[in-house]
């Protein structure tokens, strides 16, 4: 057992660090740090995406032939870690981490040639149409229909919680193409252009005042039959492949550790009620240490999965553990932040964004202003991509054999 990186890996890490120092602009750093929602706005991600694309470092989960950098799992980890430490904005997952790998794996050469370059260039912005009002955890009960008519599919129904549908020009959706088949077998994976009269998007504002979510309505919306991925009825298999990427496709520990570092530094300047600074308050210091221990252990858990992957062993249901632990840790870190800032953490601005010239003045510090909106929005981590309860059931069945 060792944690040593090879000279090549260390050289790679240094290269990433240099790149970040040169290309990650102050504007992007500021926007990333001051985004309290789960997803970063496209005007920011586009700019960062273009930088990474030019370098060939964008689609880390894609095979090299489609424009991926061809990295080893260790390189992917080092890249994510350096990005987290430097405070780079999170990239839009829907295109790069969700539908992209699906098209790489299940798409036809025509589909690959048409869609993949436009994901890389940022020309297409994607949203994910899985959940429906009646189909959340029980995704397979989804009801949105697609009917084949000649060389088109006609889509009717609704999708909900579609993150950034108001920015997207394409949606990938799970739709029911065969109502008579067993639940899972009647589902297909369809790519649908958003800019058409049959689609309306209505905003859903979050408890923190952010607009990320939407409900998307399909009223005789259309898409060409060439936009079906895989075969009719193969949608469920594809969906499960995608969900594994969604749950375990990145390294979360570095960003958690970086955030704990920021909280610790801030705590050195927050006076405690009984003298001294909050950093030295015994209760606070113990909570900080406890979370550090958990995040440090979590980092090794993530590395163990990476090491398995590097040896060609499949990750499988362990990704559920990563999702579960990462989500709860994130929420605990957010709670530490609101508890640190006290009254200053009670500000909850309604204006967005919280970066740039038009951002509302914070009371105290910008970090304090971000603490509560972040805490509120991050409640979603234990809900989306398979809730805690769903992950625990998966682990109980598939890992513990219960």
């Amino acid at each position, binding site marked *: 057992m060792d944690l040593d990186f090879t000279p090549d890996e260390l050289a790679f890490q240094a290269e990433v660090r240099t790149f970040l120092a040169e290309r990650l602009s102050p504007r992007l750093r500021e926007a990333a740090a001051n985004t309290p929602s789960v997803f970063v706005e496209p005007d920011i991600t586009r700019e960062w995406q273009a930088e990474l694309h030019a370098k060939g470092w964008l689609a880390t989960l894609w095979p090299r032939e489609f424009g991926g950098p061809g990295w080893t799992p260790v390189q992917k980890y080092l890249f994510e870690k350096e990005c987290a430490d430097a405070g780079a904005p999170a990239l839009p997952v829907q295109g790069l981490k969700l539908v992209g790998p699906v098209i790489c794996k299940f798409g036809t050469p025509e589909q690959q040639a048409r869609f993949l370059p436009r994901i890389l260039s940022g020309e297409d912005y994607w949203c994910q149409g899985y*959940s429906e009002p*009646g*189909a*959340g*955890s*029980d995704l397979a*009960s989804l009801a949105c229909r697609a009917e084949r008519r000649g060389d088109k599919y006609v889509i009717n129904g609704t999708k*909900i*919680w579609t993150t950034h549908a108001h920015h997207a020009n394409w949606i990938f959706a799970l739709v029911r193409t065969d109502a008579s088949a067993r639940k899972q077998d009647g589902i297909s994976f369809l790519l649908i252009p958003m800019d058409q009269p049959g689609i309306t998007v209505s905003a*859903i*504002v*979050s*408890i923190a*005042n952010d607009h990320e*979510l939407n409900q998307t309505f399909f009223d005789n919306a259309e898409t060409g039959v060439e936009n079906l991925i895989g075969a009719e009825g193969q949608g469920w298999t594809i969906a499960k492949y995608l969900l594994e990427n969604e749950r375990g496709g990145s390294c979360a520990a570095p960003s958690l550790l970086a955030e704990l570092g920021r909280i610790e530094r801030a705590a050195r300047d*927050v*006076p*405690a*009620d009984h003298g001294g600074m*909050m950093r030295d308050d015994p*209760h*606070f210091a113990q909570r900080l240490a406890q979370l550090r221990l958990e995040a440090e252990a979590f980092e090794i858990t993530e590395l163990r999965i990476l090491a398995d992957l590097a040896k060609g062993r499949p990750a499988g249901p362990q990704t559920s553990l990563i999702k579960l632990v990462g989500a709860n840790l994130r929420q605990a870190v957010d709670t530490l932040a*609101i*508890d640190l800032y*006290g*009254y*200053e*953490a*009670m*500000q*909850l*601005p*309604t204006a967005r964004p919280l970066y740039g010239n038009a951002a*509302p003045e914070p*009371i*105290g510090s910008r970090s304090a202003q971000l603490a*509560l909106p972040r*805490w*509120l*929005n991050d*409640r*979603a981590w*234990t*809900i*989306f991509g398979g*809730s*805690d*309860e769903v992950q*625990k059931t998966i682990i109980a069945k598939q890992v513990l054999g219960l």
Partner: protein
Amino acid sequence: MDFDLSETQQLFRDTTLRFCGPGDTAARHAARRQPGGFDRARWQELAGLGLIGLAAGEGDGGLGGSLGDCATVAQALGEGLAAEPWLECGFIPARLLASRAAAADVIAGSTLATLAFAEPGRRFRTDPALETAGGKLSGAKTFVPCGGAADLFLVTARHEGRSAVFAVPRDAAGLTVQGYPVADGSHAAQLVLDGVAHGEPLAADLDAVIDEARIVAAAELVGLARRLLADTLEYVKTREQFGQPIGRFQVIQHRLVDAYARVEAAQSALYRALLRLGAPPAAVKGFIADAAQWVGQQAVQLHGGMGMTDELAIGHGLKRIVLLGKLFGDAAGGIAAYGREAA
């Protein structure tokens, strides 16, 4: 021994719940869009029901309600998810102003008063660092509850070696008010006082009123937790996934039993505090706030995506819980102080 509400308490509870109505979040949103995030008409209505007067002494033009009566109203406001800052702008000013002339307007709902106690860089401390000098107040206050809308500030200051409270109207010369939105959608304020003239300090004992306010806050927290538990119970009975109501899943049943247990413990802790038995108010409020926040988080979690939206009562309740949890000190501080005292 009897833990039932008295007849008058039951009456106040019913009146308060009627005032809150079905608790539609549309009304709440409407209130928050008014200037200063505050609905004056609703406030007048609340005052008209005698609910502000309840907190003032009989000799001071009020109804002379006991702390238990006031806690009953606060709990009902929590259950009804009222947007009105009855604790901050009703109970506290009524207690502090007592026999002052301004009390009448506060009781009538025509003057909105609030306590300006927190100071930048002094975390949860309630002993003011701001000092009077030659009849003037100079310094800063922060997190003044509903300060964005308030007409009258009850400013805490160190005066002749003690904590004192001075009534300062919003339009006083030398006072700058900057409102900002906070967790529950109301607008708090930062105050800058630059040589603001002050009169005689109020007669009331600041620390005693803050301790009472902690208990009243705890009562509202109990009400909020009850409300979120009730809404969640309702939701899990009707929301179906995998062909059955999600409330049939054992993990959800057990989680809600835990929530129920914590709510009942919170209610008992509140009663104990009202009987003035045991822990100091700051610790009791901390204990209750922890329970309420946990229940609120479970409510969001068990509502799934719906829990994340501004449309449901759930999020509004959770945000009010978070705010009350910090008001006059957080759980960690309150419980640690009890630990030091008991040792």
